[in-house]
Every structure is written in C-alpha cells, then in structure tokens.
C-alpha cells in the first residue's frame, strides 16, 4: 500500500503542468469560447500523452486531474480517456488502438442513454457524446436483453448530431439519434463494460476534481492578496474555515481517486465501489468549491472579466456528467442494501 507518487509519475505531472501553463492559459479558454479551432495547438502537445489511454489508471488519473485544473479544451478526454479505454476493454483491432495511442486517430463514445445515464441500454438515441465534432470515429455502445455490443462508426457528419449546450464551452456534448445506422458490432461482455465504466468514472472524477482544485486554489490565492479592513481577508476566521472545509473535500476526493485508480490497476474486489466513491467525492468537492470560490472572491468573481468562471463552468458540468453525485450515491446504496 503506497499512496506516494513514483519519480516517473512526479515527472509526468511536472511535465504536463509546464505544457499546460504555457499552452493552455485562461486566454486560450476565452479564445476557445469564440473559436472552436483554438484548441488545435494545444492538441499538438497533448497528443504526445495519448499513449496513457491504454496505460495504468493511476497515471491517467494524475493527467486528467491536471487537465481538469487547466479546463483544457480539445478531444483528449473523449479520445484518450473514453474511446481508448473502450477499445482496450473490448480488445479492439490493434492497428486502431495503436493509432489512437499515437494521437493519430481521434474518437469518442456514444453510450449514455436518452436521459444521459451511463449504463447498458438499448436506446437508439445516445446523449452527452463528448466533443463528437472533433472526432473521426464514434464508438456506439448498444445492448439487447442479454448482450452488449460496440460499433465503431465514422463520424456521420455534422447534421446528424445535435449539440446539447451546457454552461461550459470548453467541451461540447452531442446527441445522436442513431436510428438504424448501427451495423456490424463487436461483442462486449458485462465484465468488459464494467472495466470501461469503472475507468471512465475514475477519469471523470479526476477531471472533476482538477476543476474543483482550480476553483479552490484561485480562492486561496485571492484570500491572501485581497485586503479589506486593512488586512488580507484570508486572516478572517470566516474565510479561513471556508477554505479549510474546501481543502478537506479536495484532499478527501484526491485520496479516494488515487485509491480507486490503484484498485483498477490491481483489479481489486472493491474496484467498482471505489470508483463510485471517487466520483461522488469529486462531485461534492466540485459543488462546494465552485460555490465558495465565488463567495470568497465576492463581486469580482461574478464578472465575465475575471477568470474564475472559466474553471467554475468546467466544475459545474463535470459534476453532472458520468453520473451525478446523487447517481453514484444511489449505486453505492444498491451495494449497501443488497
């Protein structure tokens, strides 16, 4: 049992932080609001990390935490997080897996049902397909009463997909009425589906947590700088206790995430439960941090001009995706009351 980062993991985190600090400043996020192509130079850097899509969950979680912290736009989450994870889970064609791992092919996953729930379903309407407009391939997951399938299709063209607009322009989500278009399919066993879901929930937790951590650290920094009544507002106990509670939630969710990632890599018996815990804990941290980071910033945090909202948006949407906090609590309750 070891929660410390290896030297290689620390190097990975440090390298990525440098890339993101240089290539993904708040100005890029603002530019991306108006120009969807603005993420392209960033992707040129991030595709070098695409191999992580088929690597250890521990490494991948560290990376997605940093990407959430930067609210990085682009197809990395859809392709390296979801698409690669699904291809690995179902042991798909190795040439395709290699191309995705090299960042040469970009894909996304259509699995959530028409209500936005990530579970096995036979819905012909799939929702919340992340960044489908940036993908060449879409993996559609479908289910019958007793079997599941994955169909990998070329992007059907912009008119086939409708955007589900959210408050966060750094990532787009789409809805696709697949109709009868689904053809030949690769079978997906319940165990493979579970492996894909667990990993996806863990990576989504990492992104959610990263966004929460960003809101928290901006509030902490502001509390040290901003002076009222001739002293930093961070010297007031009311502010200190808010930040202490926020940091507790961030630390607790971080530990839960690292545990879940290790449980995935070890194929531990409570892997699934640990991933539900991780996403719920990240969701709780995100909600608290986004609300209190605004509160601590006061009026300035409520303005478009201030950068806080760029990250607050990512935190808000991330909590709702890949299972809301309540949804994951319900899944845990199913286990507890079984």
């Amino acid at each position: 049992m070891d929660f410390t980062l290896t030297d290689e993991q620390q190097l990975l985190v440090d390298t990525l932080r440098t890339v993101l600090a240089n290539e993904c400043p708040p100005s890029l996020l603002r530019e991306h609001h108006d120009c969807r192509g603005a993420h392209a130079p960033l992707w040129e850097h991030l595709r070098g990390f695409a191999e992580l899509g088929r690597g250890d969950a521990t490494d991948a979680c560290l990376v997605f935490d940093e990407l959430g912290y930067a609210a990085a736009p682009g197809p990395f989450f859809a392709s390296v997080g979801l698409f690669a994870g699904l291809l690995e889970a179902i042991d798909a064609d190795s040439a395709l897996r290699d191309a995705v791992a090299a960042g040469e092919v970009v894909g996304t996953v259509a699995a959530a049902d028409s209500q936005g729930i990530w579970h096995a379903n036979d819905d012909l309407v799939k929702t919340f397909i992340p960044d489908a407009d940036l993908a060449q391939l879409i993996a559609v997951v479908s289910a019958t009463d007793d079997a599941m399938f994955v169909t990998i299709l070329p992007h059907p063209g912009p008119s086939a997909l409708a955007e589900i607009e959210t408050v966060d322009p750094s990532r787009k989500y789409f809805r696709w009425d697949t109709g009868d278009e689904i053809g030949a399919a690769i079978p997906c066993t319940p165990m493979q589906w579970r492996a894909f879901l667990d990993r996806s929930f863990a990576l989504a937790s990492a992104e959610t947590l990263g966004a929460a951590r960003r809101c928290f650290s901006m509030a902490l920094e502001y509390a040290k700088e901003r002076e009222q009544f001739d002293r930093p507002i961070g010297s007031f106990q009311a502010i200190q206790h808010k930040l202490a509670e926020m940091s507790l939630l961030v630390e607790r969710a971080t530990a839960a995430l690292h545990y879940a990632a290790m449980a995935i890599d070890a194929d531990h018996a409570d892997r699934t439960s640990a991933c539900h815990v991780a996403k719920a804990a990240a969701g709780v941290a995100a909600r608290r941090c986004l609300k209190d980071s605004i509160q601590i910033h006061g009026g300035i945090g409520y303005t478009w001009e201030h950068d806080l909202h760029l990250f607050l948006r990512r935190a808000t949407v991330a909590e709702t995706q890949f299972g809301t906090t309540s949804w994951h609590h319900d899944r845990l309750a199913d286990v507890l009351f079984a």
Partner: protein
Amino acid sequence: MKLDWSETDERFRGELLAFLEAKTPPEATRVDFPGNASGGDAIPAWLRAWQATLFDHGWMIPGYPPELGGRNCTPTQTMIYLEEFARRRIPRATHFPGYAIVAPSLLEFGNEQQRSLAPAAIRGDTVWCVGMSEPNAGSDLASLRTRAVRDGDVFVVNGQKVWTSYAMVAQQCFCYVRTDPDAPKHKGISLLIIDMDTPGIEVRPLTHITGHADFAEVFFTDVKVPVANLVGELNGGWALTQGSLAHERAGLWVDGVARLEQTVRDLVDLAKLVGRHDDSGVRRAIASMFEQASSLRSLGYKGFASYAQGSSAPEHSYMKMASSEAGKAAFELGMELLGPFGAATGAGSPTTLGDDTGRWVTSFYVSFANTIAGGSSEIQRNIIAQRVLGLPRA
C-alpha cells in the same frame, strides 16, 4: 502508487492474526466499540492483563523495539496492526494517556531517568493522566495558569486542571504548569511529572451530559514536586504540548474511521428495521456517509506513512475534524430514522426497535465530545488554514 501489500507485510499480518486468535481474551470481543475520546473511571482487570500481554509479546506499540513493547515494525505494518484491531473491535487499552501521549513524549524529551518510565507507561503498569486543560485554558491551552514556583529542591504547584481523563485512577500526572508568568504565554510553560499521591492533590470526578463520570477536575494546593521531575527545558514546555497532541491525533483516525464504517452498517440495518430501506432520501444519506468513510480511510492511508516516519502529516487535522463531524451526523441520521422515538431512551418504546432505542441518541451525545476533545473542530480548521494553507493569522 500501488495497492497491494508486500509479502513481508502479509507475513506480518499473518503473525498478528495468529497471535490474536490464540490470545485475545473473550471479554475483548464483547466491548462496545472502544476508543471514546474520554476515559472511564475504572480499568477492568482483564484489560490491564491484555495490555501487559500485548507488551510482553511485542504487540503493544509494534513500531517500538521489544523493550518498549514492540517489534521494530515498519510504518506500513503499524497501520496493518491498527486496522486489524479496529476491524475486530479489539481494544489495546482504555487508558491511552500513558502509551499514546506520555511515553512518546518522555522518550523524545526526557532525561535518562525519565525515559526509563516509558516501558511501564506502555505496559499499563503505571496509569498516567495528562494535566492540560484548565477552566480558562481550553482551546487556548497556552493561557494555562496552574503555577509552579521554585523553592529550593522543589516546585510548589497551585492551580486546577479539568477534563483530566483517568485522574481518578492515575498514579502519575504529566502536568503542564506556568513557571514564568512574566514571559509571553507560550514561553513560560514547563512540564512536570507529578506523583498523584503527593499531599495537596484533590481529584473530583466530573459527570458529563450522558450521566457518566469519565473525567475529573484536579486541584493542586501547595503540591511539592521535586525539581528532578521537570521534563525538558524550564519554560520549554510548549514544544512538548505540541508533541503530545500530535501523538494523540496520529493514532485516532483508524479507530475513528472504523467506527464510522461500523455506524454506516448499523444505519443500513436500522433503515431495514424501521422499513425505510426503499426511501431514496434515506438510501442516499447513508450512501453519502459510506462515501465519506471510504474516502477518509484513503486519506488516512495517504497521510499515515509520513506520520509513522515521525513527521506530522497535515492529513491528521483533516482526519480528526472530518471523522468526528461525520460521526455526529451519522448518529443524528440514526435518530432521524427512529422518528418520534429518536430521543426515547428505552422504557415504553416499541419492543420491535430492540437495542436501537436509546442507542442512537446516546451515541449522538457521546459524539459531541469527539468534536471538542483533543482539539475542537474549529481549532482543526484554524490549524488547516494557517499551517497547511498558509493563511495569515488574524
């Protein structure tokens, strides 16, 4: 990062479990979960014998060498040890001040003669109490007023301590006193070892809201303490208060989390008993408790290594605050599930509720102590804000 335990660690666990299988006294498994923040007014004979057995077999403080009741095990193994005890709900001892606070402080700060008192403190042969809080020095411990004035070969001690666990049965007191009233408050405190038989000491049990007398007030009137009983530097006692509080906090999380996990299981049973197991609000509330308990366990693991290697980990302030607050909320949820019988104590309640009547409200009351004792939640938040997050003091 990795999850599995090494072969050596699994072998360690095997040895521990074999020992527990062979030696655990039957009474130990019938104790309602041990580890309350306060101490009892009596120490059962079987528990004293059990603590001595643990010491003699190197299972009392496994990270210490054999002469101190251990086996020089690694930090990770210490955690395995604490977890196995908590999982089986087996107590190590009830009187924690001696092994958890006094012995580590004596070993770190005491002279040779004082260090020699540590083994008996750990084995439980000597019962210790710790004189810290006073009526006007609670969270603001540094404002303590119990005075010690040098008079030849002795200090003459006058003052009052309060919330002193085990004072009724203790032979020795690890007592913080003011030796320089003119110095800034943190710089005029010293630590004395006071024999509880010394004339001038009066102990009055202090009954708390549950009706039990788990603590005492201790009054000192012209108590003469040999100068040789000074631990560490004269006026250097504040550093030692920091040490003992760190020891106290560091060991609490495993029990605290295990208790929380047990409470979650009990809440599931209670929800079924009162027919609320299909209520989605109830299910979510209990699942949220489970989420907190599980993630706190992970946070505890994350912080443990740094503590066990001798440095204090910030995780422990988080653990203390979060597990005690979550415990309080969990017991409150149990009361909620009992509806109008939530605050009933037994007589006249439906027999179908069985042992659950009264149990939740009592635990709820007991849990108040956990967010106050050993550094209140508010103090923990101050510590996190100032020492971990680097926010300026007011």
